[in-house]
């Protein structure tokens, strides 16, 4: 019973850290796709006096990734379709050139403003409309959620590390006597810490398996029934096998640091 409790006291905080890491990885993968959609879905409107090229805009600002002309004839047809052809022709000749300019990544509001200023420096450009307010609200919500998530995971990680340090104190208390006796009889460090390493290794593997199990369940069983389109579309990236190695690596790293700190603090060495 005491042994089970000791394992749980270490596995639970380790599990919290691993869940945080995996949740962050999954969030990044899913939102990367969402971010991609926002990026490709977003364009700014460029109004020019005469036809312009992508190369011209790219020279002004490297973030411009695409340039699609908006058909002026279509605009005239929709706005003045009931007028005679001659009038439509006159309107068409007076109409400036409209373009949708796409960006290479999802950028902040300040960067959008900079792009607008850069592009408006060109003499052939009349105006650039960034649609900043709607873009801004989505972007701010997105960054806020990401910040909250990072903060929560960071907080959880700190609390968990404190719990692990507490458990290390218990380990030190429980194993110090044995390790010191073994040291007096000439046991090398690895032998006298063998028991702790075995416990820690088992705990690391268990915490990794539980984390992987939870995310596999979410991926294979919960998400298909969730009716959340974003998750259902990206079901394949919710948990990938390579995540197990990342989780195991982190878990082993934490437990080995924990065990070494206990072992080294229990070593008496030679008093000068």
């Amino acid at each position, binding site marked *: 019973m005491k042994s089970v409790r000791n394992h749980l006291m270490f596995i639970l905080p380790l599990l919290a850290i691993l869940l945080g890491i995996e949740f962050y990885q999954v969030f990044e993968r899913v939102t990367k796709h969402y971010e991609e959609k926002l990026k490709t879905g977003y364009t700014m409107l460029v109004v020019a006096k005469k036809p312009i090229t992508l190369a011209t805009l790219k020279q002004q600002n490297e973030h411009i990734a695409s340039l699609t002309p908006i058909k002026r004839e279509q605009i005239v047809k929709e706005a003045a379709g009931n007028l005679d052809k001659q009038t439509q022709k006159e309107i068409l000749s007076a109409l400036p050139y409209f373009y949708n300019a796409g960006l290479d990544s999802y950028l902040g509001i300040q960067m959008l403003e900079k792009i607008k200023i850069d592009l408006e420096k060109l003499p052939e450009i009349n105006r650039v409309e960034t649609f900043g307010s709607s873009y801004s609200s989505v972007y701010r919500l997105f960054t806020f959620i990401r910040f909250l998530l990072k903060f929560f995971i960071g907080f959880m990680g700190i609390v968990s590390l404190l719990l692990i340090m507490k458990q290390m104190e218990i380990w030190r208390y429980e194993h110090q*006597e*044995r390790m010191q*006796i*073994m040291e*007096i*009889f*000439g*046991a*090398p460090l690895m*032998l006298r810490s063998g028991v702790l390493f075995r416990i820690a290794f088992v705990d690391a593997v268990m915490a990794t398996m539980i984390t992987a199990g939870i995310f596999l369940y979410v991926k294979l069983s919960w998400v298909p029934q969730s009716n959340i389109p974003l998750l259902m579309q990206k079901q394949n990236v919710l948990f990938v096998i390579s995540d197990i190695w990342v989780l195991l690596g982190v878990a082993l790293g934490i437990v080995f640091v924990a065990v070494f700190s206990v072992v080294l603090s229990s070593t*008496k*060495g*030679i*008093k*000068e």
Partner: protein
Amino acid sequence: MSTVISAKNLTLAYDNGRNEIIKNASFEIRKGDFVFITGPSGSGKSTLLKSLYGEIRPKEGSLLVGGVEMRNVKARKLQELRKHLGIIFQDYRLINEWTVEKNIVLPLMIDGYPLDVQEAQAQRLLKHVKLSEHADRYPLELSGGEQQRVGVARALSKNPVVILADEPTGNLDEYSSNVIWDLLENACKQLQTTVLVVTHKMPTVFSLPYRHFIIESRGVYEVR
């Protein structure tokens, strides 16, 4: 007989050399010697013993144990040296979560002896210290005298060159004490093991015909 322990102008101190416990001590102990070390409380008996198994580094002079200079011994060398020492403590220092048998074979385990060798040696020693029926019990289930017999068996398990015993009968009644003295004498006589015993039990010291060092006023004096 060859010299096993040799001290020349040995000074031992605590607190980074500020508090000198033993100063300028010189002595030699040969293979097969049985040596009592006595002295008033706080005179430095246990300190001297600790310096012999490398828990305290000498401040000055020379201290050779099995040919190893303890003043500048490195951790790995010390680790090797300790495998040839049998150490007995007043408070037994057994591993309470291990069985008696496992405690006894600790030095063999550390040296990587095969399990069957460990088992055979444990059986022989359990019989020797008259604890055969307690092999699977845990130290805290035994009396003080029995626990110290386990400690002696552990110290003997690898036929060490030197046994260092720090007040081995300090917590025991007369009967248990006599059992421990017999075991240590036998080891010395039959195996030619060098035995150093720190004790304050003067009647025992005077009743046994062995070398006797007294530590007093920071000096080590051989009185017999």
